[in-house]
């Protein structure tokens, strides 16, 4: 009994993901099933549908359902200077290489509400590289991108951001970069001077330029293995020989078909460097 019920639910999930793709061109069909299943169950319960098929009907006929579904289907958990040791390694080991370039392009893929992007901009400013750098911040969730463009965060998060920044070897005080009002902290708009925000999917879109450094953290954990290979292929093709790729703390190229195109640059921090392969 249980067995057949579970299988029906998996069929419903696959159909719902097809519906989202054909109706709105959002492609979650090759995301890791275990996590998608969990979040679609949450969506079904919290939005009050009796089955995932019933939810699918609304997805197809009511465009207002799209942003709601995206809230469940994309995970927006982030922090400024999340995993401070990653940013410390960029500062100490990657920056010295980047200094040798007269101009730089940096791609933050899956930037969520901008926490990781602004961390890098601040780090680059502290290291005197911001002026020569163009940052691309991309995501598929329009609400997250809009929030990234405003750079406004809940004041309660600032303590953690400040502590992270310090541990990341911050050379200035984080408070130099924001003003506070009404329980919000607003990042200085000068931090966006050299940033281009853009809707871009690692699943359905293509390479858009040559980058010296790509940071893509905690995005590909939501993909299945073949889809991870597609995304890593985009990074491989964006990076020239010696370009850098940074992943999340528990992500790895070990299982990727593109592993040979990279070497470990800072092993513990999942920072890789493009080889000639």
């Amino acid at each position: 009994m249980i067995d057949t019920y579970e299988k029906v639910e998996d069929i419903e999930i696959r159909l719902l993901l097809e519906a989202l793709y054909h109706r709105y061109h959002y492609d979650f069909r090759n995301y890791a099933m275990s996590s998608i299943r969990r979040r679609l169950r949450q969506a079904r319960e919290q939005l009050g549908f009796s089955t995932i098929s019933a939810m699918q009907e609304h997805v197809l006929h009511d465009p207002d359902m799209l942003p709601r579904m995206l809230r469940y289907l994309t995970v927006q958990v982030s922090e400024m200077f999340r995993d401070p040791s990653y940013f410390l390694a960029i500062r100490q080991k990657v920056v010295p290489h980047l200094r040798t370039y007269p101009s730089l392009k940096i791609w933050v893929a899956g930037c969520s509400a901008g926490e990781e992007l602004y961390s890098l901009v601040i780090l680059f400013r502290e290291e005197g590289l911001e002026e020569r750098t163009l940052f691309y911040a991309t995501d598929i969730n329009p609400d997250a991108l809009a929030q990234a463009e405003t750079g406004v965060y809940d004041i309660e998060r600032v303590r953690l951001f400040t502590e992270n920044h310090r541990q990341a070897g911050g050379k200035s005080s984080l408070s130099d970069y924001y003003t506070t009002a009404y329980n919000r902290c607003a990042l200085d708009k000068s931090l966006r001077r050299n940033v281009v925000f853009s809707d871009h999917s690692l699943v359905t879109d293509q390479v858009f330029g040559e980058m010296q450094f790509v940071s893509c953290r905690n995005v590909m954990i939501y993909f299945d293995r073949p889809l991870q290979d597609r995304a890593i292929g985009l990074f491989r093709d964006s990076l020239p020989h010696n370009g850098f790729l940074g992943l999340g703390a528990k992500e790895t190229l070990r299982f990727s078909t593109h592993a040979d195109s990279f070497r470990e640059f800072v092993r513990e921090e999942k920072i890789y460097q493009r080889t000639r392969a």
Partner: protein
Amino acid sequence: MSKTPEGAVIIGASAGALEALSSILPALPAGYPFPIFVIVHLPPKKRSVLAEIFNEKCRLRAIEAEDKEPVEPGVIYFAPPNYHLLLEGRSSIALSNEEEVLFSRPSIDVAFESAAEAWGDRLTGIVLTGANHDGARGLQAIENSGGTAIVQDPSTAFARTMPDAAILACPKARILALPEIPSYLSSNFK
């Protein structure tokens, strides 16, 4: 790569985990045929040394799982701090940053539920010592999918809240003292 194992064991523990696990994992024989997933509540911002400790102490290989880690028989996989661990079918592990569940990431419930999904009646779930209610729901999911539920005897637990909650949720669970657990696991390759 070796073939997909035919069953699996998943263990959840919180306060008092290190001691409890020390009387189970090192007692398992070399060549144990199932993968063993271990979910322990840990401080989110610190590197965990659990895998290293148990890799030393055990006859089985113990590692901290990375995303899309392939699942192999006789390997002990620890969930890394600050990530949920989910089973992506029977062949690999997926990690996730989703929100904490019952203030926990990794969440024992999340891992148990996904393991139940993947392994059905080929799964044994074990709830050990802990001072919260995580694991009760997950153990119930394992039971509902036909798997075996085991709970550490609360009277022998460092913190009994978690095993008590698990027994309340799964009245049919086998209640075992710590030393009985490895013998049960080694003799029941169902």
